[in-house]
Structure formats: C-alpha cells, structure tokens
C-alpha cells in the first residue's frame, strides 16, 4: 500500500514534469512551426533521404497527391501532438489533485524523486559543458526514465506482469545482443518510432481511464482504483523495462530494442486492459465498457496512423531486424497486421460522433480539473522552470537528431542514452498527440496557450490528410471525394464552355403594364354608375385622326374701287386665264340684252305708274282736254338745254313704235349752254317720257332704230350710231344730270362735192328693203343683233335741188379708235359709214316752162312706196307729187295732181301712206287742201278743199290702229280728226289749241292684241311734247273697216 502511495506520488511529480515539458515543447514546436513551416523538419528530412527511392516513385505517380497528402500530413502531426499534450495535462493534474490527500503518505518516494532529479541535474550540467542540447534532452529522458522506474517499483507486486516482464527481459536480452552490433542511427530511428508508439499507447490508455473517471461521486473510490490501475500497470510495464535496463539485473542488455519492448508492452497492455475491463465490469456500469472499447478503437486508429507514418522507416528497419530477430518479427508482424487490419476495419465504423463524445467528456473533466491544478502548479514551480528549459532543449535535440548525438551518448553511456532517447521520443509523441487532441477543445484551453493552439490548428488544418488523424479521416475522405468531383466538374465545364456559346442575346419583356391615367381611373371608379360611354364618329375611316374637320380652302381675291375697265375684282393666281376665260364664258350680249329689256320694263312700269298719277291729275285739272283724247302724257322737255327751242319735228320710229324723236331747232336766245346754235334731236321713249334718251344735233330724219340719219341744211347727211357707248361722247352736266351729246358717227361733209348734196337736204328716207307687196314684219321692241349686224340697206336723201342720192349704209367689222385715214367723215371709233351709191336728178323733169312760171322747182318731200322700194314719190312745191322709179321703166302715173287741171304753186307739205292700205296716200298742201290718192291713178280719190279752213296743212297722219281715221294739223294749231267711215266730207273732231300752239304733230300707236293703243304726239310752241291717247272709238278698229274703206274708195272712182 505504501509502495502504491509512493508510486502515486512519484507519478504525480512526473506528471508535472511532463506537463511542463509539454508546455515548453508546445511553445517550441510553435516557434518551429513559424520558422520552418514550409521547410522539411530535420526528422522528416532524414526520413525522406532514407526513403528517397520509395518517395520518388510515389511522387512520380501522383505529384499532386504527394504534395497535398504526404507533406501536409507530416505537418499536421504537430498540432495534433500539441493538442494532445494539452489535453493530457489537465487530466493528469486532475488526477494529481484527487490524490493530493495521499501525498503525505509518500514522503520517501518524494525524496527519492528529488534525489533522482538531482542526479539528473548533475548529469545535465556535465552535458552542458559539452553540448547543451544533448544534455537537456538526455536529462529529460532520464527524468522520464526515473518516473517509469518509480512506477515499476510500485508495480512489482503484480505477478502477471512479472511473468510478462520476465518474458520481455528474455526477449530484450536476445535482441540487445544483436543490436549491439548495429549503428546508432538505426537504433535511434527505431527508438524514436517505438517511443512514439509507446507514448501513444500510454496516452490512449490514459484517456480511456480518464473517461472512466467521470463517474458519480459515490463510485469515486472504485473509479479511482480502476482509473489508476491500468495506467499504473501500463507505466509499470514501461518502467519495468527501463528499470531493468538501468538498474535491473542486466541493464546493458535490456536497453536495446525499444521497439520490441513497446510491442510487448502493447501486448501486455491489451491483456491488462482486458483484465481490467473484466474487473471493472463487476463494479462499473456497462457504459464504461463501451467507452473503453471506444477508446481502444481510438487507440487502434491512432496506432494505425502511427504505423502508416512509420511504414517507410519500418521498412528500412526491417532489413536490419530480419537478420537478428526473425522469430520476433514472425511473432510481431502478424500481430501488427492484425492490429492494422482491426484498425482499418474499424476505421470506417468509427464515426465521428463517438469521438466527439469522448472529447466533450474530456473537456468537462478538464474544466473541473483546472482549479485543482493551480495549487499543485505553485508547489512545483521550481521544477517547472528547470524542466521548461530542459524540455525545450530536448525537443529540439530530438527533432534535429545530429549524427554526433550518438557518439556523445556512447561516450556517456550508450545504452542509457538510447533508452533515454527512446523515452523522449515516446514522450514527444505523446505530447504531440495530446496537444493535437486538445487543440480541438476550445473550452479547456488555458489562457496563455489558447492563441497558440488556434494558430497551430489553423496552420495545420490547411492541408487535409487522409491518414493523419482518425477524427479527420472521414471528413478528409469526403473532402477528397468532393475535390475529385469538383475537379471533374471543373474540367467538364471548361470543356463544355468551349463548345457552347452563352450569350445575353435575348431580352424578353414579360409585362408592360402602363399606369392608368386619370381619365381611365375616373371612368373605372364612376363611369359605370348611371352613365354610359358613347362616341360618334362620322368619318369612320379616320377614327384615329385628331383633327377631322375638312381643310379650309383658301383663295386670294382682290377688288378695286372704283372699278377699272377690266373688272372690279380678280384672282392673282388665275390672273389672265381666269379673266379671259370669264370674259369668254360670260355672255355679255345676253346679259346686256336682258339688262336692257329688264331695265326698260322696270322703267316703263315706273313711268306708267307715275304717268298714270300725272294723267289722272291732269285729267281732273285740265278741262281743255281734247274731246278725242282719252288721256295725255307729257314728255319732260322742261330741260335746260331744250328750253326755248321750237320743236320742228316729231317722229316715231317705224320699227320701234315707242321710240320718238323730236327735233329741237336752234334757238336764238342766248343761253349759258354752248348748244344754242345747234339743233338738238332728242330720242324719247314714250314709256319713259321724263327724259330723252339721246340727244343729237343737226337732225332730220330717222331711219333704223339704232341708227339715226339726218340731213342738214348745208347738204350733208349725218348718221348717228346709237350703239356707241355714251362714254365716248361729249358729256355735259346740266343741272344734276349728265347728258351725253353725241356727235354724228359719219358725216358726208367731207365727201366730194360731186357726190354730196350742194343744197340743203330736205328729206332723208330709208329705202325699204322688203319685197314689194309684203308687209314688213313686226319688229321687236328693240333692234335685234341680227338687224344691226346685218344692216346693209340703202338710204336716200333728197335736197332742194331735186338731187336724190342713194347711200349704202355699211357697218365696219371693226372700230378704229385712231380714226380712218381714208374715210374722213368717220368719227374715230365709229363703225357705221355711208357709201355713195347712185345719184339721181329728179328735178330735171320739170319743164322749163313750168319752172319759169312758177319759179324753180323744189323737191320738198320724198316718200318711198312701202311695198316697192323702186317707186318713190316726191312732193314738190308745185302742188304735184312726182312718181318715179329709181331704176327701170317709169311707172304709168307720172305725177299725181289735184282734180283741177293746171299747176299751182302750192307746196306739198305732207304726204303719208296708209299703213293698212298701202296703195292709198294722203297729201296735204299748203293751201289747206287734203287729197287722197291711189297709187295707180293720177287723180285723187277724194279731195277736201276746206278741211282745214284754208289753213296750210302742217302735218297729216293716218292713225296706226284704224285704217279710216287720220289726223291733220294745220298751221293755226287746229287739229282735225277725220273718220272716213263716219263722215267722208268733213273731220269728225276739230280741236283748236290756242293757248299753246302746236308746232308739230305725229301719231303713234300699236295694234298689238293685248295692248292696243293709239295716240297723237303734239309738240307745242313752248317746247312741250304732249302725248294724247285717243279715246276708245278712235283706237279700236271697227269691224271690216278696211273693206268698208275699200268699197268707199271704189265708190269714189
């Protein structure tokens, strides 16, 4: 018991030493790591050199694998060791603490330990003088040896072990003998390997114990025993050997062949453990068993790892070994193989979870152990200091492994040194393992060492090792597999990427939902309530057009005021063409025709309206209205330029019955107007009596409606073309109104004297162009274009000398504004001229005898037979009417005379053919006699000597509507109306107008069906022109009036 206690004490001391060693070694190794991280460690280097061939071959096979695996594995060993060291430390401390109460029981042992240490130190000092490192290492090794020895001593009692030891000794001895022959190097290598193994075994064993240690308090005692014993046994085993080597019977022999011993030790240990387990089964739970088994598994794994590591070394060693210890090899190799197999077979089975469980248990254990450890630490401070140094030195030494080492050791004591070294190696190994194991526990880490561990761990973990550590194996394998897979995938992707083109070519628009505008939102919210959206589109094709109204058409126009000749407005774009076109398309003739007629109608209507009122007034006021009259109308002659003029002639157009021409003779009274010396012809429209239409000078006789012919007193014949524009004539503004005074368009003044009249023209007559015997057709109200354009007729003018000139009226196709150089009588711009056609001398026929009697014959009147223009009748101053023809034979009655024979110098003042019976004509004479002649007979049908009471006849006219009625005006201003059917001896009505003498008289009327009128125009001395309408019985013809007149004529003959 006391021995056991002493052993315990010793062990505690040793543990402390080891702890310190572990710490220092750990520090050392860390430094080493920092400096030699990337380089080979000496040990590895030597190993590498030795294994050159093998290594190179492997490298050739798989360079990467070698790099990633082998070298990294080696490096990895260090952190594992360190962590295991660290892990072991607290365990030991905790163990120590628990046995603290037992310390006092082992004083002797303590002394012994101190003495041993002292001895060790002496030795070390000696070594220092030669080589410090060597010495330190040796000291450390010696110290360990001491520990073992102590333990061995304590375990002497155990018989089984003794038996085994004996067996070992025998083996050792045999081996040692052989080994003596070999070099140090081999031994050292073997020792190193063995040490490592033994250390690991030891450690694993202890860990198993520690696990078991964690038991409830009540089992403390049992556990203590159970825990300590295996360890003790194990240590004893080792100490046994060492002691035998050093102090035992045959020290020299035993020391050698550490490896063999370790193998044996392992065997012993296994046996022991088996036994131990059996023992523990009795008082401990089954759990322990499983834990220990796990531990064994772990240990097995560790050993396997170690073996792997040492494979090459072993291979080398085996060469030597084979010579000396065949029998052992034969024994061991199978066992080793067996172990290896077991480990390898267990490898896959050993999951991570059990390992981790173990670790965590360890961790909790350590935490509790830390406090206890502190106390012990103070106690043994001195030792620590010493051992720190020595341990560190030793570590370096062991790793560098100088070749001289062996020699030096041999000098001291070769066997012992070898032994020490072996132990050192084992311890190193163990420490390293412990350190590595502990590095995985973050909880138990000591403050000063924690950073180192973590750093170490980080550094070491970089390279994944397949075989480095059992814990990492599966993960490493997985890592390896995943690495392979990833490289495969990488390769695959690299190859594929070359084949496949990836691009961003397409961008797909998945959804483009525009924001809802306000109107839509409104409609969506409110649009469905009582409303309906509708729209109307007229132009359906253009529903999407914004502006749908028609384009506004624009065109440019201009107007001008006052308008110039070419029009009052125009278009700049279409300037000429449009204007010309407009003029071309514009039927100006039609328009003017329309305007004329329309204006005339309007004017007539207005005039009628006014005249009616006036006549009514007159009828009521005028009491002296002639009895025959039904009403009267006055032409407005009360004009300034007509004032004071005596009307010499009133004439109605034979074609246009409403047009009346009045000839106002020149006045002698001075007036303001220049027209005084001129005779003025006024053209009136009886429907428009208030003003004359045209005013002409120097006039005598009208012809056509549009042409006015006049013979002058100086022997010229003048023609007025009424179609000429008024603007081209001299205008006079008289009063408020402007009058155009026309100059004649053509005058024969400029003609040669031979062809012109040399005496005053007495009569101008148009030669009727119509065929003889036919009535002239009724002409329209105004001269038609045909009539005017196709006018080509003859004009006859008779002068006093009996010269009858025939003129052809020619209308020029084109007016010449500049005037004609040849036709000097043509007015510039005039289009009508007279061409002298023929000349007849009518007066020659008058016998000279007659002429002598009566004076020169004067031809006063010229009349053409209306039905035959070949025959014309000339009234003379002899009271005769000559009947002549313009060409051809002379007609039978040469002249018409009164019933009395003889020629009297009586002027024929008036002569008028009946419009109904054109064979009849009336002749009025200056003596007041009136004759009715028939063309065919020389003598008159009837003769009224006293018709006018002796007064000369001024004018004599048949009425237009009744064939049997005619009017006679005598110089006494007495108007006689004859109605031959009522009374063929004297006039039916005789009206005497004394107040205002009548100077000229003419009849007018129209026998048109709807508007039959008839009347007499009286020109008074005062200048008034009075239109007297006949009363009904003078207007409306009696039935068969012509026949009655005819029969009356026949009776007369």
């Amino acid at each position, binding site marked *: 018991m006391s021995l056991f206690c002493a052993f315990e004490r010793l062990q505690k001391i040793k543990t402390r030493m080891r702890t310190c060693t572990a710490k220092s070694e750990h520090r050392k190794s860390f430094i080493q790591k920092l400096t030699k991280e990337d380089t080979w460690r000496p040990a590895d280097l030597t190993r590498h050199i030795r294994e050159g061939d093998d290594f190179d071959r492997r490298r050739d096979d798989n360079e990467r694998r070698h790099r990633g695996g082998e070298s990294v594995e080696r490096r990895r060993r260090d952190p594992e060791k360190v962590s295991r060291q660290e892990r072991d430390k607290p365990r030991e401390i905790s163990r120590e603490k628990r046995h603290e109460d037992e310390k006092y029981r082992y004083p002797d042992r303590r002394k012994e330990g101190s003495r041993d240490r002292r001895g060790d130190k002496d030795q070390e000092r000696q070594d220092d003088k030669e080589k410090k490192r060597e010495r330190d290492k040796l000291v450390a090794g010696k110290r360990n040896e001491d520990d073992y020895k102590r333990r061995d001593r304590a375990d002497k009692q155990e018989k089984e072990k003794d038996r085994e030891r004996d067996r070992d000794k025998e083996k050792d001895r045999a081996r040692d003998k052989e080994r003596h022959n070999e070099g140090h190097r081999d031994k050292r290598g073997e020792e190193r390997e063995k040490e490592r193994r033994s250390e690991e075994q030891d450690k694993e064993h202890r860990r198993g114990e520690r696990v078991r240690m964690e038991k409830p308090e009540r089992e403390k005692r049992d556990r203590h025993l159970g825990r300590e014993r295996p360890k003790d046994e194990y240590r004893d085993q080792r100490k046994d050997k060492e002691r035998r080597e050093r102090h035992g019977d045959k020290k020299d022999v035993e020391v050698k062949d550490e490896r063999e011993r370790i193998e044996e030790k392992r065997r012993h240990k296994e046996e022991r453990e088996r036994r131990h387990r059996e023992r523990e089964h009795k008082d401990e739970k089954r759990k322990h068993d499983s834990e220990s088994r796990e531990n064994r598994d772990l240990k097995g794994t560790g050993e396997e790892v170690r073996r792997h590591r040492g494979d090459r070394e072993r291979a080398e060693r085996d060469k030597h070994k084979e010579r000396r210890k065949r029998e052992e090899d034969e024994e061991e190799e199978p066992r080793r193989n067996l172990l290896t197999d077991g480990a390898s077979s267990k490898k896959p089975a050993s999951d991570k979870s059990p390992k981790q469980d173990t670790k965590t248990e360890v961790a909790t254990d350590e935490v509790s152990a830390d406090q206890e450890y502190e106390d012990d630490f103070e106690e043994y401070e001195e030792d620590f200091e010493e051992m720190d140094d020595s341990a560190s030195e030793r570590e370096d030494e062991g790793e560098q492994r100088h070749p001289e080492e062996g020699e030096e050791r041999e000098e001291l004591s070769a066997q012992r040194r070898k032994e020490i070294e072996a132990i050192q190696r084992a311890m190193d190994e163990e420490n390293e393992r412990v350190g590595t194991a502990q590095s995985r526990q973050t909880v138990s880490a000591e403050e000063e060492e924690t950073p180192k561990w973590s750093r170490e761990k980080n550094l070491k973990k970089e390279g994944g090792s397949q075989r480095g550590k059992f814990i990492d194996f599966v993960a490493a394998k997985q890592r390896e597999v995943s690495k392979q897979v990833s490289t495969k995938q990488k390769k695959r992707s690299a190859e594929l990427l070359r084949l496949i083109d990836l*691009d961003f070519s*397409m961008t797909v628009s998945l*959804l483009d939902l525009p924001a809802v505008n306000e109107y839509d939102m409104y409609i969506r919210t409110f649009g469905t309530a009582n409303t309906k959206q509708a729209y109307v589109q007229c132009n359906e094709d253009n529903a999407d057009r914004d502006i749908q109204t028609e384009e506004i058409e624009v065109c440019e126009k201009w107007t001008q005021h006052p308008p110039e000749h070419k029009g009052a407005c125009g278009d700049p774009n279409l300037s000429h063409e449009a204007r010309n076109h407009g003029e071309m398309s514009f039927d100006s003739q039609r328009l003017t025709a329309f305007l004329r007629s329309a204006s005339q109608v309007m004017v007539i209507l207005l005039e009628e309206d006014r005249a009616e009122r006036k006549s009514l007034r007159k009828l009521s006021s005028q009491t002296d209205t002639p009895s025959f009259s039904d009403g009267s109308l006055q032409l407005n002659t009360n004009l300034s330029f007509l004032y004071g003029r005596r009307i010499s002639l009133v004439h109605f157009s034979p074609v246009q019955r409403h047009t009346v021409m009045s000839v106002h003779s020149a006045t002698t009274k001075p007036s303001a107007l220049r027209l005084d010396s001129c005779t003025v012809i006024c053209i009136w429209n009886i429907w428009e009596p208030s003003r004359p239409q045209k005013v002409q000078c120097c006039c005598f006789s009208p012809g056509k409606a549009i042409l006015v012919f006049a013979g002058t007193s100086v022997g010229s014949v003048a023609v007025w073309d009424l179609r000429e524009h008024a603007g081209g004539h001299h205008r006079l503004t008289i009063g408020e109104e402007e009058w155009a005074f026309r100059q004649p368009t053509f005058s024969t003044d400029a003609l040669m004297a031979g062809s012109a009249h040399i005496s005053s023209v007495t009569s101008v007559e148009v030669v009727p162009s119509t065929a003889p015997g036919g009535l002239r057709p009724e002409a329209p109200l105004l001269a038609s274009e045909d009539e005017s354009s196709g006018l080509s007729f003859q004009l006859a003018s008779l002068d006093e000398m009996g010269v009858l000139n025939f003129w052809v009226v020619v209308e020029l196709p084109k007016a010449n504004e500049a005037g004609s150089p040849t036709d000097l009588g043509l007015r510039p711009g005039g289009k009508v001229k007279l061409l002298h056609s023929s000349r007849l001398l009518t007066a020659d026929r008058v016998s000279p005898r007659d002429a002598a009697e009566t004076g020169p014959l004067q031809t006063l009147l010229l009349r053409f037979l209306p039905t035959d223009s070949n025959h014309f009748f000339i009234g003379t101053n002899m009271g005769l009417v000559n009947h002549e023809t313009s060409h051809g034979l002379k007609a039978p009655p040469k002249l018409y005379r009164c019933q009395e024979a003889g020629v009297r110098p009586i002027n024929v003042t008036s002569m008028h053919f009946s419009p109904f019976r054109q064979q009849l004509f009336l002749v009025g004479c200056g003596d007041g006699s009136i004759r009715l002649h028939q063309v065919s007979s020389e003598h008159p049908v009837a003769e009224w000597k006293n018709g006018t009471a002796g007064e000369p006849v001024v004018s004599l006219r048949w009425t237009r509507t009744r064939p049997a009625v005619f009017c006679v005006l005598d110089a006494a201003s007495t108007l006689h109306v004859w109605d031959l059917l009522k009374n063929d001896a004297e006039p039916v009505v005789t009206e005497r107008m004394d107040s205002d003498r009548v100077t000229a008289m003419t009849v007018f009327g129209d026998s048109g069906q709807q508007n039959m009128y008839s009347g007499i125009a009286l020109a008074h001395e005062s200048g008034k022109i009075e239109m007297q309408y006949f009363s009904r019985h003078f207007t409306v013809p009696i039935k068969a009036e012509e026949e009655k007149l005819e029969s009356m004529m026949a009776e007369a003959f």
Partner: protein
Amino acid sequence: MEGSDTYLIRPNPQNKFKPAIVKECIREIVRERLSGKRYEPEEVPELSRSLAESIKDRVKNAGFDKYKLVVQVVIGEQRGEGVKMSSKCFWDADTDNHAEDLFINVCTFCSVHSDYSGGEGAKFKSI
C-alpha cells in the same frame, strides 16, 4: 486513362424545348388556379410558390430531357400603377429558350416566366 470526353451538347430535336407547349401548360395552370381570384397579400407568396412548383412539375413531365427548369412567378395587384418587367438570361441561344404567359384579372396580374437552361447533355467517357 481519362481520354477526351464526348458530350451531348444539343438536345434531341424532339426533346427540344418548345415554348408553345410550355406556354400552353402555363396558361392552363394559371387560368385554372387564378381565375376569379382576388389579390390577397397573405396568400400570394404561397400561391406563387405553389404555382411555380406545379408549373415546373408539369413541364418536367412534358419530356424536355436534359433541361434544367427555372420558373418565375410574379403576382401583383392592379391598382393603376405601371409595371414593367423584363428578363434576360445568359444562355446558349441554340438550345435554351423560355416561355412566358400573362394573366390579368380585374385586380390581379400574374406574369409567369419560365427559363429553360441546361441541355448541355450527358457525358460519355471514352476509355
């Protein structure tokens, strides 16, 4: 030992991804699942996820071998905001394709977009 690998980098023509078919699939599923539904913010995440899953399953069964399918479902509420979505893929235009469909409800819109990429084929090792 590892000779040059041969790859099938094109799908069979009959196995090629056909957007029309997939679009029909999407349309069917989306119509069936979404018609008449209102937008519920709580349900939508689950709904879109399940929609995507069911579309993916359906398309997987449509026989497009060697394809990896990506289905994206976006469901949103229509409240007048403007939405613009587009997608762009880094792919092999010869083999990969996409199909999309749009479903718009009175108050919901749903845009489904499936990208089909992959089709790089099996790998045959010639040893």
